[in-house]
């Protein structure tokens, strides 16, 4: 194969880091420890966010506000959105898998700035606790995760300020992480490893980190201005004082549209790692994948106003942002067809990781189609702020990112623990999640098209039956967490021993022990110039080929 395994060097000196399980509660600078810290912390917040979603769906079983008062409903939906986005998906698809995998993929022993990395993680638990505790102490923010003024200026101030503080901390964490990923991928590659030989997840994380570094600071500045409006009664976004609410929306979406790509691009990368291994085929179209990611990064920065078609945007702006948004479907479609082509004719082993990956492809295509539809002004004006948008968004971030998070956990669990997860429970988990997810969110398209507004505790009684279907789906999703949790915990003790490389994979993280040692390799890092050389007979591989993509271009 195309690996150069160097000779063993003398053992590394004793580590100064704490060892044993306590290191997961320490200020560890080991990227693998930090990755797992992100994952477990993120999952805890997923359970909290899920409980909040459960409260929302329980309220919506009946058309009147009976399960909780209206202002509590507002707090719950604000917390649900903020927790799921800023404390679960963003930290997990970036921080958790990025920290665990990127140093392996570039052949490094750790991230470029290990201490900054630890700081970035340890900003998250306090920010999350701050946010959750605001519900009990002052009452949480009530203006949704978008915090649009003037709503965020007129709802109770204490909760809103705590919300801003928490999001600023999480944004700082995200920026520090992004700086670290950019430096690691561009500067810490093992000598001899070229950019176009990197596993696809590196490219996804590079693109994501560029978006993080360019867009998150704008959100931070905007929220600082919003907090001035609340605390010092300035008038940036207060029309009563001569300000302009639409400027807030522009600045907010300049971050929060890229935030969708910050949540979904790493998921694209993870799927691109999982599929080739379990299909025993090279990743189809490596080069087009790379350019698609970069195209999404560039286009993702110039489409934000498609969230604001009903905010009095002038016609030229509507035209520009509709066209730019429609353009994003091109690179996304390229990636989608590349995954299908990777699956095509492969020896697919339908294990839990692949099932979740395929579930991702199905859900994401549905969410993508509604996304293109929503980019069209006439349609968007009709369904703006209805459940159609809720359905679209959840198809992207749950059907997209969360399905990939589960796929990745099934795929990399053997690397982290040295044991395999139970396949029967895994497939059961997938079945429950897939059915529950689609039952929960597919009907919401219909609700939105018929005019049910989002973010309101009460609704027209004609929508009750469909809402109850949706709530049953949510219940199934809640139940689906149980076999997963049991599987994760029980497999850690009783799972089958996995060995170092249970999937016969070629990406570098599988070429070391399971779990990997501190500093990742006993000797030097292996040079993996073609991480996707599956299914090509060994004697047909040209060992001196210069780029990773050459082999399957010429060797077919």
């Amino acid at each position, binding site marked *: 194969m195309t690996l*150069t395994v*160097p000779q063993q*060097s003398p053992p590394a000196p004793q580590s100064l880091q704490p060892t044993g399980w306590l290191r997961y509660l320490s200020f560890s600078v080991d990227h693998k420890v930090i990755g797992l810290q992100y994952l477990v912390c993120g999952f805890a917040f997923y359970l909290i966010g899920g409980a909040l979603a459960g409260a929302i769906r329980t309220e919506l079983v009946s058309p009147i506000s009976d399960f909780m008062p209206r202002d509590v409903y507002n707090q719950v939906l604000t917390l649900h959105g903020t927790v799921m986005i800023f404390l679960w998906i963003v930290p997990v698809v970036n921080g958790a898998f990025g920290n665990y995998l990127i140093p392996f993929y570039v052949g490094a022993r750790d991230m*470029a*700035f290990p201490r*900054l990395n630890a700081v970035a993680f340890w900003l998250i638990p306090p920010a999350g606790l701050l946010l959750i505790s605001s519900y009990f102490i002052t009452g949480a923010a009530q203006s949704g995760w978008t915090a649009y003024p003037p709503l965020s200026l007129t709802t109770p101030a204490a909760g809103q300020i705590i919300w801003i503080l928490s999001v600023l901390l999480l944004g700082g964490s995200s*920026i520090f992480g*992004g*700086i*670290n990923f*950019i*430096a690691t991928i*561009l*500067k*810490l590659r*093992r*000598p*001899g490893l070229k950019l176009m030989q990197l596993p696809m997840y590196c490219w996804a994380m590079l693109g994501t980190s560029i978006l993080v*570094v*360019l*867009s*998150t*600071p*704008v959100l*931070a*500045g*905007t929220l*600082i*201005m919003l907090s*001035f409006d609340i605390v*010092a*009664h*300035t*008038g*940036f976004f207060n029309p009563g*004082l*001569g*300000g*302009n609410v639409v*400027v807030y929306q*522009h*600045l907010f979406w*300049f971050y929060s549209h890229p935030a969708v790509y910050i949540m979904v691009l790493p998921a694209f990368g993870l799927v691109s790692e999982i599929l080739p291994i379990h299909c025993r085929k090279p990743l189809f179209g490596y080069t087009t994948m790379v350019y698609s990611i970069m195209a999404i990064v560039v286009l993702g920065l110039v489409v934000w106003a498609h969230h604001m078609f009903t905010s009095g945007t002038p016609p030229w702006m509507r035209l520009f942002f509709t066209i730019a948004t429609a353009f994003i479907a091109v690179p996304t479609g390229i990636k989608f067809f590349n995954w299908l082509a990777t699956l095509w004719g492969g020896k697919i082993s339908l294990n839990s990781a692949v099932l979740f990956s395929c579930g991702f492809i199905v859900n994401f295509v549905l969410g993508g189609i509604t996304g293109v539809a929503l980019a069209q002004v006439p349609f968007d004006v009709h369904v703006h702020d209805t459940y159609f948008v809720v359905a679209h968004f959840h198809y992207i971030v749950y059907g997209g990112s969360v399905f990939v998070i589960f796929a990745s956990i099934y795929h990399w669990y053997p690397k982290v623990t040295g044991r395999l997860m139970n396949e029967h429970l895994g497939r059961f988990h997938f079945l429950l999640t897939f059915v529950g997810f689609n039952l929960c969110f597919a009907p919401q398209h219909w609700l939105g098209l018929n005019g049910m507004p989002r973010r309101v505790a009460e609704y027209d009684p004609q929508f009750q039956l469909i809402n109850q279907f949706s709530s049953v789906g949510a219940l199934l999703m809640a139940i689906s967490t149980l076999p997963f949790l049991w599987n994760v915990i029980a497999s850690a003790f009783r799972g089958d021993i996995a060995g170092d490389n249970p999937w016969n994979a070629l990406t570098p993280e599988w070429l070391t022990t399971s779990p990997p040692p501190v500093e990742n390799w006993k000797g*030097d890092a292996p*040079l993996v110039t073609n991480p996707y050389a599956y299914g090509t007979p060994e004697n047909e591989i040209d060992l001196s080929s210069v780029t990773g993509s050459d082999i399957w271009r010429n060797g077919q």
Partner: protein
Amino acid sequence: MTSLTPQDQIEHQLQHHEEEHPDHRMFGLATFLVADAMTFAGFFAAYLTFKAVNPLLPGAVYELELPLPTLNTILLLVSSATFHRAGVNLRQGLNERCRYWLLATAGLGLAFLISQMVEYFTLPFGLADNLYASTFYALTGFHGLHVTLGALMILIVWWQCRTPSGRVSASNHFPLEAAELYWHFVDGIWVILFVILYLI
């Protein structure tokens, strides 16, 4: 090197890599400054949009004088030059001269902050008086915060390079260079801010 095969070169780099840990701190700082610049870009974009679509409410007072900010611009531009001199001297091992230039830079930074304060206290409007007043104080205040942090960094470096064998020296000039890059960045932001806020 010409006799080495590409594989040998890689092995050579690997060993080199093992001996000297590569220093990517400047790269990290530059990336951070890109992020920081985007924060300012957000503020600038907000200000320019306000200016384009939100007229000053009737009766609101918002007028700026030019002399003091022009002096401020000169102070900061000169301080960039003095900081550069400090770096040149440090790399030649001339710690005393370096400290002299650092002190001059910090002094110019401090003069900028004082002059800014004078401007604040002589302006006929307060933070929450009107939209433009708020934007003015937010932009200059956020920039002033950066100048304050920069001045503190300069003083720390000034303290750390008091002997040729100190923490900051000809052989370890990263802290000085980092502070210098940051200082030039803050100056550059000021120039943009000066043009946007005072001139147009």
